[in-house]
């Protein structure tokens, strides 16, 4: 799938022919997609379509059964410092003994290395990030005392503190209140204005055209990818969400049985 408006220079991520399997069961099949630079990109698809896995494949968090990923023309090792990640909120223990400010400061660890301690400029960056998401008054709060929306903002602030060029966000809008949703959208637009690329797994199909420029429609295979106006069509949605339990599941079963 080649974007019409994205030449090689305008590409943030090139996912080439990627297959990922967990316990021999494929979750992503031959996915080929170009993510254009400086855009807000939604990844949509039904449960189990491999949306999170696509993000993790780009980040190198899961082994690729085949294919390769290029980020701004580099391999993963060369592009590490350009990446920011917002995992699913449910993936961590929010009773952990740290404050909101501590979590945001983790966004600076990547440039610090294993031993070096965060300095004043790191603390300043963390503070700026907390301010941007409207959480500065909650900086000293232990994270379990924050609401779901506030926790999501803290995660977003941590990503801001990373000061990356490409952000991969796993369901940043899941379970947040309306004011947080608006705050996140504002931050995403600010990021786009600063030339950053954001790829976000998104569940609310209604808001895709409002919040995002591009969309990647996924159901284990790539269904469609491109500008929202071109590919976010009823036909593609049906292809993505409709025939979920038919061909691919059967094929996956066959592969598992044969292996």
């Amino acid at each position, binding site marked *: 799938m080649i974007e019409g408006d994205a030449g090689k220079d305008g590409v943030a991520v090139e996912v080439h022919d990627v297959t990922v399997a967990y316990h021999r069961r494929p979750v992503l099949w031959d996915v080929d997609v170009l993510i254009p630079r400086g855009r807000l990109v939604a990844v949509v698809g039904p449960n189990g379509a491999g949306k999170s896995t696509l993000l993790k494949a780009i980040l190198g968090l899961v082994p690729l059964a085949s294919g390769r990923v290029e980020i701004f023309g580099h391999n993963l090792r060369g592009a590490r410092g350009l990446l920011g990640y917002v*995992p699913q909120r449910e993936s961590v223990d929010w009773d952990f*003994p740290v*404050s909101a400010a*501590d979590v945001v400061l983790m966004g600076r*660890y990547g440039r610090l290395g294993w031993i070096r301690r965060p300095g004043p400029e790191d603390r300043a960056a963390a503070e700026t990030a907390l301010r941007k998401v409207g959480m500065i008054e909650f900086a000293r709060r232990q994270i379990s005392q924050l609401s779901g929306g506030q926790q999501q903002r803290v995660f977003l602030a941590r990503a801001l503190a990373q000061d990356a060029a490409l952000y991969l966000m796993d369901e940043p809008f899941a379970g947040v*209140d309306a004011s947080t949703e608006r705050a996140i959208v504002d931050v995403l637009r600010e990021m786009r204005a600063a030339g950053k690329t954001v790829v976000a797994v998104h569940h609310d199909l209604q808001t895709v055209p409002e919040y995002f420029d591009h969309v990647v429609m996924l159901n284990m295979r790539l269904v469609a990818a491109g500008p929202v106006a071109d590919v976010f069509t009823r036909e593609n949605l049906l292809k993505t969400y409709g025939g979920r339990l038919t061909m691919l599941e059967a094929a996956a079963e066959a592969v598992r049985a044969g292996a």
Partner: protein
Amino acid sequence: MNDLLRLITLQDATTRTVLLGAGLLGLAAGVVGTFAVLRRRALVGDAMAHAALPGVCLAYFVVGERSFGAFLLGALIAGLLGAWCIVLIRAHTRIKEDAAIGIVLASFFGLGIALSRIIQNRPSGNRAGLDTFIFGKAAGMTSADTRLIGITAVTIVALTYLLAREFGLLCFDRAFSASIGRRVILLDLILMTLIGVCVVIGLPAVGVVMTAALLIIPAAAARFWTDRLWVMILLGGLFGSLSGLLGVGVSALAPRLAAGPVVVLVAAGIFVVSLITAPTRGLLPASVRRWRLRRRIILQNLLRAMHEANERGEVEVTEAALAAKRAWTTDQLASVLARAARSGLVVHGPMGWRLTPRGVVEAAAVVRTHRLWELYLIEHAAIAPDHVDRDADQLEHILPPDVLARLEEQLAMRERLPPSPHAIPVYEGSAAHG
């Protein structure tokens, strides 16, 4: 008595070394234990301790005599092997972690016990001192042994301090740690090894069966006192070294008492005290807070009921009328009225209870806050629940001024706005009645 004096005044060089070693051991266990608990590896630590026993026995077979260094090395290898078996079982079968831990712990420990019986039935076996490894016996250790334990413990603490930030991130959010390029498998391995080394140096003093307690209990107790990782590490270390010092100290006084159980009992004592009294998370302060909150809410409900009666023109309210307003038992009502009377908020008049001038002001403030809050929840809650702290009494300190002004206007229009206790400009302009 003489022994006690000698112990307390640390006259005896061996006692001094043993106590220092035990304190350092406890410190290391508490510090590393913090991460064992946060990474949910506490039981793996226990499994490693049990799995270490056959290693000690095999070391005896290889060396042929009691050799402290060789015993510890054997224990470490066997312990890590046990941990590795748990990882393998979990990764390649459908058996869950708890069952895998049980299988490895019991099998290795059984093998260890069997091997130690074989050794003890040999002519020279009694001198091997293997029994001390099962329940721990500080008195049996030489100064050289203790020095080895102390130096290792200090090394563990230093390494953990250096890597504490990385361990913290690993425990909190492993995927993020990997996403910034950290080698999380290596970090996990280092943490596991530190736990293993800590368990192994604890064996001679505390014993196979109870070493893991020194790893888990001080750290778990520390969690009750703080919401800060660094404080938790410090407290875990402090509780651990207290347990080690006191436990080994008592055991040194009464040589027939094994050190292990005493150490664990001291740690458990610290845990129970923390569980009950710790101000942040302890049970007692929490129930006191709940009790105070309930008392406050009951008093506020009384004031609201009286205020509403006043709004209907009733100046004095009978107890029967108040009881009908809320689900109060007679006792509850009597007690809250007595409390309000003691605070000078209500007095008993000829017809029933009435608000004092101070009570009127207080009741108006409560009703005002309550109604504004109610209206806020109805009108604005969908927009900004994140900016509200539900426990606070003073809405004007929480809600943005423009939101508050709008709410007050709406309430005033319905003639339901009681006066503000500290009149604020917005209110002065929008409503003039009481």
